């Protein structure tokens, strides 16, 4: 009897371990399928964006399969929930060892990206990263990590450069007279963007009058906003997730501490929920440096990507009827998965050989992906063609202000109408 109970328990445990992953588990021994994974935070504080990214990945796989799959092999996607880096490590191991995935799409947060890369690279499995921007992800010498988007340091520096080039004059100040406060969430993501921003400020001679970090679980930002108010910056450059970005703006308003320019760096201030929640009137004129988003469809005309971008936007929005636009994180997740499956893998001489796929990824050069820039992977796995855009909230929409090639509007409300000093 005890033996039977043991067997039953073992069965239940095995079933439990499999049910931790969603989607269909794949076995491509027969050579008819190509198994890929997706790891995003589907529960926890970043679950909102994580679920949005997963939907984008699923659509990418669907489109590729509709076109016949990868070199005739049907792509099977298995997804897993990783609300934190520790779980990301466990889930990556599970997908690699038990499901046998050949590539993983992820992972929204930099912490998760680093955790997954530590597992996948040793196993010769690819991590196609479309969310984590921490610099060290592509500075660690990984062979099988490809990041389609820009690095965090680049993004922070780009935000500062735009302030120096375009906003200093409007504010009636020389670059060296401009005072900037830098506030960031404390993970590697926030830190590397802020490091890049501060380094560029120092290069340009801009005055960094305040810099600090905070935990995203903070429930009251009064103390840090008072410090910002004391520093009287012209510009507040923030690196936040959605929840803390909302709390920050609310507190800035309540304590009469809104600076002349609010420059958000990263997805927190570009997410549609940000403007919807704080109110379009308050958001109007706030900047956000991020990946290109909601670009005019004409941008994709020459590359022939217009139909797929158009279809993706429609399909994705049909699953999120409350949303007006596809969030940046989801656009990036789609671009990473779609480009890798549709454009890179078919160039590989052998889909079972990681080295052949790596060579295909490095040798393939694309002028355009569905994200608005090309694919030109460096040896370190960083897309050299990636660059952030300077966006601004205008009337409830994210409008691209720079670069000129992609802009669909001019900057407004500089300084912000609600500025307090």
């Amino acid at each position: 009897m005890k033996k039977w109970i043991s067997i039953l328990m073992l069965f239940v445990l095995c079933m439990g371990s499999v049910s931790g992953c969603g989607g269909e588990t794949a076995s491509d021994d027969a050579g008819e399928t190509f198994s890929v994974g997706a790891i995003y935070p589907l529960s926890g504080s970043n679950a909102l964006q994580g679920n949005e990214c997963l939907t984008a990945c699923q659509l990418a796989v669907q489109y590729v399969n509709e076109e016949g799959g990868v070199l005739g092999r049907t792509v099977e996607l298995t997804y897993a929930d990783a609300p934190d880096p520790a779980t990301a490590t466990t889930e990556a191991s599970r997908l690699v060892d038990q499901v046998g995935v050949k590539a993983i799409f992820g992972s929204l947060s930099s912490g998760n990206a680093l955790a997954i890369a530590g597992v996948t690279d040793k196993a010769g499995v690819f991590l196609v990263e479309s969310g984590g921007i921490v610099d060290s992800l592509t500075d660690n010498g990984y062979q099988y990590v490809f990041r389609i988007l820009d690095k965090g340091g680049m993004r922070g520096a780009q935000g500062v450069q735009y302030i120096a080039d375009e906003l200093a004059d409007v504010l009636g100040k020389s670059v060296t007279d401009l005072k900037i406060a830098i506030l960031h969430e404390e993970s590697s993501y926030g830190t590397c963007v802020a490091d890049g921003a501060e380094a560029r400020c120092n290069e340009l001679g801009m005055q960094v009058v305040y810099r600090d970090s905070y935990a995203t679980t903070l429930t009251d930002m009064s103390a840090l906003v008072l410090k910002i108010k004391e520093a009287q910056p012209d510009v507040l450059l923030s690196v936040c997730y959605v929840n803390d970005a909302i709390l920050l703006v609310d507190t800035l308003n309540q304590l009469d501490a809104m600076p002349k320019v609010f420059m958000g760096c990263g997805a927190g201030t570009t997410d549609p929920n940000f403007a919807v929640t704080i109110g379009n009137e308050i958001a109007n004129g706030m900047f956000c440096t991020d990946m290109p988003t909601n670009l005019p469809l004409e941008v994709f005309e020459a590359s022939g990507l217009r139909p797929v971008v158009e279809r993706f936007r429609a399909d994705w929005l049909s699953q999120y009827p409350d949303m007006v636009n596809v969030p940046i994180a989801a656009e990036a997740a789609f671009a990473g998965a779609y480009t890798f499956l549709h454009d890179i893998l078919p160039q590989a001489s052998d889909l079972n050989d990681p080295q052949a796929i790596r060579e295909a990824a490095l040798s393939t050069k694309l002028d355009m992906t569905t994200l608005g820039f090309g694919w030109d992977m460096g040896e370190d796995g960083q897309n050299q063609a990636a660059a952030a855009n300077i966006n601004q909230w205008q009337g409830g929409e994210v409008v691209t202000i720079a670069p000129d090639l992609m802009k669909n509007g001019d900057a407004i409300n500089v300084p912000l109408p609600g500025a307090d000093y």
Partner: protein
Amino acid sequence: MEAIIQVFISGILSGGIYALASVGLTLIFGVVGLVNFAHGEYLMIAMYFAYWMFSLFGLSPYISLPLNLLVMAFLGWLTYKTLMERMLDSSHSIQMLLTLGLSMVLQNLALMLFKADYRNVRIAITNSTLDIGFLHLSSARVVAFLVAIAASIALYWFLQNTYLGASMRAVSQNSKAAMLMGINISRTYCLAFMIGTVLVGLAGLLLSPIYPVYPTVGVSFCTLCFIVVVIGGLSSIPGAIFGGLFIGVVESAAGYFIGPAFQQAAYFILFLFVLIFRPNGLFGKNIG
């Protein structure tokens, strides 16, 4: 100096909400003897209720308050009768596992039903401020603080001056002796659990115009409640009120004087010191 006063007042205002949520936890622990790890999830449920009342019927959380508290009382009763009552004679580890499990079930249920979206109740008071001289106080936080303190004091009065309150205190001191004196233990436990749930629900409701609601919003508040309760004294109502206010001020002052990254570390360090030097907390041991 002005900034320091502002920091202090901001801390006190936050502390009022922490105190209210913690008072409920203290009451349940003091009377029923249960460490309720699902406490934060009741805060989450109350916030969702406030959100849906606002979203569907346009009712401000302050208007839907009576209904919200009734629902919380019912949930408290239901939880006690279906789960907690059966576990009262079990070991503490079994009870903790049960409440931890309940916490996970409620979180995932919320995730399944409402998705992970951040949902906000934006009413006029959300962005309005009360300007007193140089002080800028968030109106919603001031209201939350006043209601929280009033509710905590009312509970203290109830425990000190009513028969039911006296029976709760008696049960918390010695349940067998209380039973021999004719106190209905089961009913007292149930009432304490319901009041504790209503109080954390009230805290959630007052938070709803200030803070977004999402399935795991209760987790960080629950951790904070445990720290407050340990600092104040495991089953002391005045201790929980003092602990809440104290943590609010420490959090705010640490954020201002040391740095926001240290805000949470500050009260965890304090928590460790209390555990080492005064394991019973700063106040007494018994309810009331």
